């Protein structure tokens, strides 16, 4: 802040004297290009209206203290609003009023201080242009030598270099110290099962009944009328004590019934559907959002996250968007009592790609 005492005009004069400096070394025959950019210095000083007109100055003063008073008012109002609009009933309307009025008071309180302070500084505080020169980044020779000496003294006094056994054992201790944390964090990952195995299999297995989400009631084939869409979970999912949501996240299925004539089925998969009833994984093969926006006439499934579209009539082939693979199909059949059952688990991992599956 050494320059703070100088006025703008003096600084501008000092700058122009620098430009006129004669180079210390002769240039000889070398071609020296003149610097294209010349320091323009400060623009001419323009006094503010508040400096020239006492009326305007008083007005600015009024504005500033009014803003500070408004801030006080806002703070007092926020306290009053807390009392006047309590959240006592279970009514969401009360929460809204409480938040809104306290918020308005706090906003006024903060903005009043902020705008007032800035306006004070801009319109009323001393108006001079200043430049603070940066000091040199490097220290001087004495300071540098002093710093080196501090390190040398510390090394000599502590014996860090001399007592190498102590030093090496300390380094060893520091290296080993984080290991317990790594072991503890590893405990959060799947222990006895391989992650690829976990990602490749779901709760569905041969004979698992298809059940309604969320009630868990099994679904009869006759219940599924043409044009229907059922949101399906494996029967027994709701009875799981551990990992219910993890299992649901993998096993969620959308069951649809199309007119069998509309289904364009692969010969290998004709036994996977029943009278036009088809079941597909609800987990998008792009990044795993639930795909359930089913259009019953176009037979298109739309993923709401990134607009991938799958054609249910054509084994959920991707017809638009970033998904790479079709949705995995769950092979279904009907048991003796007429309930829909799975013939097996999905024949491929559901959901997005992972390291071992591209």
């Amino acid at each position, binding site marked *: 802040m050494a320059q703070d005492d100088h006025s703008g005009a003096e600084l501008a004069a000092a700058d122009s004297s620098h430009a006129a400096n004669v180079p210390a070394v002769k240039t000889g025959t070398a071609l020296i290009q003149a610097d294209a950019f010349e320091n323009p210095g400060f623009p001419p000083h*323009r006094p*503010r*209206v*508040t400096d020239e007109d006492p009326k305007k100055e008083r007005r600015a003063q009024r504005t500033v203290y009014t803003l500070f008073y408004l801030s006080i008012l806002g703070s007092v109002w926020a306290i009053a609003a807390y009392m006047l609009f309590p959240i006592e009933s279970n009514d*969401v*309307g009360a*929460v*809204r009023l409480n*938040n*809104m009025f306290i918020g308005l008071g706090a906003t006024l309180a903060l903005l009043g201080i902020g705008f007032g302070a*800035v306006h004070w500084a*801009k*319109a009323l505080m001393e*108006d001079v242009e200043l430049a603070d020169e940066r000091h040199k980044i490097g220290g001087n020779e004495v300071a540098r030598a002093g710093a080196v000496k501090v390190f040398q003294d510390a090394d000599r006094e502590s014996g860090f270099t001399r007592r190498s056994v102590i030093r090496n054992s300390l380094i060893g201790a520091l290296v080993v110290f984080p290991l317990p944390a790594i072991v503890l964090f590893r405990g959060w990952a799947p222990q006895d099962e391989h992650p690829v195995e976990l990602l490749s299999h779901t709760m569905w297995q041969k004979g698992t009944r298809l059940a*309604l*989400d*969320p009630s868990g009631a099994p*679904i*009869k084939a006759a*219940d*599924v*009328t*043409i*044009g*229907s*869409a*059922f*949101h399906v979970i494996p029967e027994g999912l709701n009875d799981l004590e551990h990992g219910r949501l993890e299992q649901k996240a993998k096993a969620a299925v959308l069951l*649809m019934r199309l007119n069998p004539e509309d289904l364009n089925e692969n010969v290998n998969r004709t036994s996977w559907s029943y009278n036009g009833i088809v079941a597909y994984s609800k987990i998008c093969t792009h990044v795993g959002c*639930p795909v*359930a*926006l*089913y*259009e*019953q*006439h*176009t037979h*298109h499934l*739309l993923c*709401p996250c990134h607009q991938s*579209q799958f054609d249910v009539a054509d084994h959920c082939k991707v017809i*638009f968007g970033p998904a790479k693979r079709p949705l995995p199909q769950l092979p279904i059949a009907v048991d003796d009592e007429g309930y829909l059952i799975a013939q097996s688990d999905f024949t491929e991992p559901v959901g997005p790609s992972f390291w071992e599956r591209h």
Partner: protein
Amino acid sequence: MNRSKRRTGRRHPLATVALLALGLVFTGGAYAAFSTGTAQAEAAPNSQETIDEGSKLFQANCATCHGLDAQGTANGPSLIGVGAAAVDFQVGTGRMPMQMSGPQAEKKPVQFTDEQVKQLAYYVASLGPGPDIPADSLVNGGGDAANGAELFRINCAMCHNVAGAGGALTEGKFAPPLTDVTGVHIYEAMVTGPQNMPVFNDLNISPEDKRDIITYLQYVQDNRSPGGFELGSLGPVAEGLFIWIFGLGAIVAITVWITAKSN
């Protein structure tokens, strides 16, 4: 005034017009009173008169696309077996008669009276069995809103938005907002699956569960968002646009003001 006119033997030049207007208003009013009187007498649902009236309305307004016997043509599907609920929904919300071909029939001002809608509905219901117009007890919102909310999130929210604000589908189609849709029409839509909406029959979502869903939607409408300004409940797009334009705009404006030199 009149007396003086009569004495001079001259009528006011507007007298004929006034007389004509009076006569027309009187006969028109009398006819209207008479016809509504007779129509109310015929309003018994499922009666042969209702079905006959519906048949006439159908021939005049719907047969061009759906065929003279509602058997369907290249321009419109067969209506045999769609039930009274489908007709009450499509005609009662103004979606039918369709104005023009497009990605989907849109809601517009209803073209028939409630009674004519019912007549059409019972005519179509008489062609083949189908879902009926639901009873009042199922659509008046007296159910369990919490259960309805869970079912709505599982079955409906992916298209209609969790607050029922609607959303986009493919190729110009969209799931309409469910705000300001009557309970009857919501119920009928679930049970019949209009246009590209899937069917949710009574074995998928039971009538009581449908009532709960309607209750939830009415609850959401009556208790607006506790956060205040919901920006159409459209989620990140509307909220992002708002904060990018107004939030960042305010920050830029304040920055310009702080750094600008005072006058």
